[in-house]
């Protein structure tokens, strides 16, 4: 005995794409009138409209504008379609879950105390903390202060923003700065696991502010002025985590 199963596809007058184009204001003339009249009386197309609205809500939940703009700016700042000094890698879900389960313990944070010569005018309130987590075949854990990053390890950043509302995270090494995140300051795991590729030592630069931190501008300042250019204004806070690599 057999049963047939459909896979969807266009209806006589129904089309998900046409509803999307209607919503985006891309229809005109006769096509606009015909589609409006059809959608108004079609339950299937009304359901599509509700699905589009749900997509908008999901966008704000999963990819807020700050994170989106920072991600796009980071890609535009680097070479197109080529692996950069730092590049994101897809991290298997099981690995991501393991990372998320790590208990936040040792804090790998270096405030700017004693580095005012490098960063004049920077205030460090000392409330924010940054932790680097690594996942290796042996399991996932917080990286201890001064401990080299294992080769090939998936890494994540855990942030305690100390009341700051916005954050940007950049990785700086001999190949230059790369933006890892910019957007609302999460209290916990910063979205996105990554692998640190390239050569040499580096620094993780975390800028916290009450105003949105422009990721593209941060990269430009880091390129032009190094760490001294990291902070956008006097009200911001900077946390720098030195990173070294384990021997190959």
């Amino acid at each position: 005995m057999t049963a047939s199963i459909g896979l969807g596809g266009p209806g006589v007058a129904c089309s998900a794409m046409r509803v999307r184009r209607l919503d985006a204001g891309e229809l005109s003339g006769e096509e606009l009138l015909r589609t409006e009249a059809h959608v108004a009386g079609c339950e299937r197309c009304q359901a599509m409209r509700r699905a589009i609205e749900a997509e908008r809500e999901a966008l704000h939940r999963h990819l807020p504008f700050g994170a989106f703009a920072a991600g796009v700016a980071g890609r535009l700042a680097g070479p197109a379609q080529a692996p950069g000094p730092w590049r994101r890698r897809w991290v298997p879900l099981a690995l991501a879950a393991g990372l998320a389960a790590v208990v936040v313990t040792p804090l790998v944070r270096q405030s700017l105390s004693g580095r005012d010569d490098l960063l004049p005018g920077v205030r460090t309130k000392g409330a924010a903390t940054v932790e680097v987590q690594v996942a290796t075949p042996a399991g996932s854990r917080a990286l201890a202060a001064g401990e080299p990053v294992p080769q090939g390890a998936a890494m994540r950043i855990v942030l305690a923003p100390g009341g700051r509302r916005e954050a940007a995270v950049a990785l700086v090494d001999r190949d230059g700065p790369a933006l890892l995140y910019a957007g609302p300051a999460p209290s916990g795991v910063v979205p996105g696991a990554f692998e640190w590729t390239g050569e040499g030592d580096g620094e993780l630069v975390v800028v916290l502010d009450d105003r949105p931190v422009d990721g593209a501008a941060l990269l430009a300042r880091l390129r032009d002025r190094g760490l001294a250019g990291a902070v956008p204004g006097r009200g911001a806070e900077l946390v720098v985590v030195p990173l070294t690599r384990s021997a190959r």
Partner: protein
Amino acid sequence: MGTPPSRGGAAAEPGNAGRVEELYRRHAAGVLARCRYLLRDDEAARDATQDVFARVLRSPGELASAGSPTGYLLRAATHQCLNVLRASRAAWRDEIRRMARDRREQGIEPESRELLRALLSAAPDEARELAVLYFVDEMTQAEIAAETGRSLPTVRKRLREFLAAARTALSEAMPDLVLPDPEALP
């Protein structure tokens, strides 16, 4: 879709912030939804979405000359995700096996969108892309031909290829399920 130029630094200039915001407001929700559907991984979907828009900003003329910006961006998202998934066909086959097991052991019939996604793995690259346009975006074959610049017979042929490959894949896991007759597709 053309190959993007090697550098796109100019598009990252602060003056383009308004353009990025407009693209986000108008199109990011649909692109992210497409990426989440095809990749089934929120983080990978976020990355793919940002890759799509970075590519668009590198070659703004392509979007400007597209008949439908929505159609262009969804095609770009589909293309991006299928590239990401090209190396993981084995995982998609596992998905079909899981559906077959759920159906056999728990009586859960596969949902058509989920089944479609799993069956895409079985088809050749070009057929997969056209199958998404047809079955997910619900574009007619004539609309697909116009959108992709292919002839109508070519679109028909690719959809037949997809259904033939899907039928073969399904016959192993769920032999009693019958897919639509390719000749009967509207």
